[in-house]
């Protein structure tokens, strides 16, 4: 039984890239994933996938937020 998921992407994304993301998730979860693809410009770049109750955030926006926190952290 395949999993349903949502894939958010920032800009134009080729079919090949989407299917490579899909293949990656299939390897990670051990099951086929069918993505509903949506555009979200606020991600800036990269993608954000929601599958099986988990969010896989590989967007540029969240990495910038994360890097910012990392750089200004005390000690």
């Amino acid at each position, binding site marked *: 039984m395949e999993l349903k998921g949502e894939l958010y992407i920032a800009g134009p994304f080729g079919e090949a890239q989407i299917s490579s993301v899909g293949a990656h998730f299939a390897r990670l979860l051990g099951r086929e994933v069918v993505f509903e693809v949506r555009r979200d410009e606020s991600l800036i770049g990269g993608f954000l996938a*929601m599958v099986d*109750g988990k969010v*896989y*955030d590989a967007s540029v926006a969240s990495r910038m937020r994360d890097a910012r926190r990392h*750089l200004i952290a005390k000690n």
Partner: protein
Amino acid sequence: MDTAAKQIGATLRRRLEAYENKPIVYEYGTVLSAGDGVVRIAGLAHSRYGELIAFENDVFGMTLDLELGGVGAVLLNSVDDVRAGERVCGTGRVVEVPVGEELLGRVVDPIGTPIDGKPLAASRMRPVESPAPRIIDRHGVNEPLMTGLLAVDSIIPIGRGQRELIIGDRQTGKSTIAIDTIINQRGKGVLCVYAAIGQKVSTLAQIYETLSAAGAMEYTVIVAATAGDCAALQYLAPYAGCAVAEQFMYDGRDALIVYDDLSKHAVAYRAMSLLLHRPPGREAYPGDVFYLHSRLLERAGHLRAELGGGSLTALPIVETMAGDISAYIPTNVISITDGQIYLEPELFHAGVRPAVNVGLSVSRVGSAAQKKAMRKVAKSLRLTLAQFRELQVFAQFGSDIDAVTRGILDNGERLSETLKQNQHEPLRMSEQVLLLFAVMNGSLKDVPCENVRAFNAGLLHYAGTRFAKLLDAIEETGDLDDAQTAGLRECIEGYRLTRSGD
């Protein structure tokens, strides 16, 4: 300048090298239903109890019910911005508040957002809920916490690390005792937290003004969830306040926290529990309402010297209805705390302020912490007052009173007058000793009852100008030796002479 820039550059480079560029993975759930500040969520299978969860639009919530297939949560900063079908993310963190000395002088809400209009830069965070100190981490209560109120410090002494309940009907001066205690900590190294739960904003503004005017905000933090805030915030307020105060204790400082008041806290928790469909018990409170307060008050205590020797004194306030101290919440909190100060409306309206009912008030551990000087002058105080109250009722019926009874009544009346005190005018320990010494040794026998307070005020002024050294010595040693006793006698006699000259 150049080296500083290089240093910053080097630090940033080092951090960037250590930075791992990998995707962030976390759980999400879907809102099934939302209403009255309570949300049911499907998913979030691995969330923890009390975890902070993030909705869209920057709304935050806290998980409270963990069930198979979903969780129940309460909203913290909004009640109507969440819709069914919306995504929710776990943050992996329990609810935390900023702590540390940066908070002194500030007013914050229970999630640490400043509500006094100024930015807050606190570097440390602490979970709102945390376990109480263990038995072996604790030390006995051995240091007094002076309230500055003669009636309390002499008869119901409070020690640092103690939990003393202030209980009474509405408008009997409960908050005033707590505020006076905070004001009296000026210069005594005790950091204070005032946790306001379900109070009117106007009342809170007034308290802030009072504390500021007395210079007490310098060492005080106000954590407030007002009557307009949602039940979840009111539920969190005492725990958040406790986390702030607790950090002071673990930093080796002495801290005082006032919970004003826990009856409103129980009501907020009842509302939340009923909305989460938990079964109601007595007075419709949920079954764990005892644990609600016991786990909060257990966090007070006095730590061993090896752990810094800090202390956290708790002054919870509970409001009774028509003097009924046998209602559910009052009996619960009475049994948890180390004693109570019971305030009575009859006394309050008869002009006895603070309206402390000496018979029903106790302090179970504080007497061990009382200074020797105070113990010496106050030892028979409770008995004298009890005898007086008994005879006072009796004397109302008969007109023929023998000399001994008359003596006890006269003495008792002067003692009651001495125990009266204006609000926000705390007395130093040595001043309290002086006043009690005077009245207990019969120096006020020939002073008419209505002049007792004027006599006492004059005596304090006289001692403050002519016998300042004696007062300071008593303050410093905390004891009353023969020479100091003679000094007090001399001071009182000297003052009596100046009055007889008028």
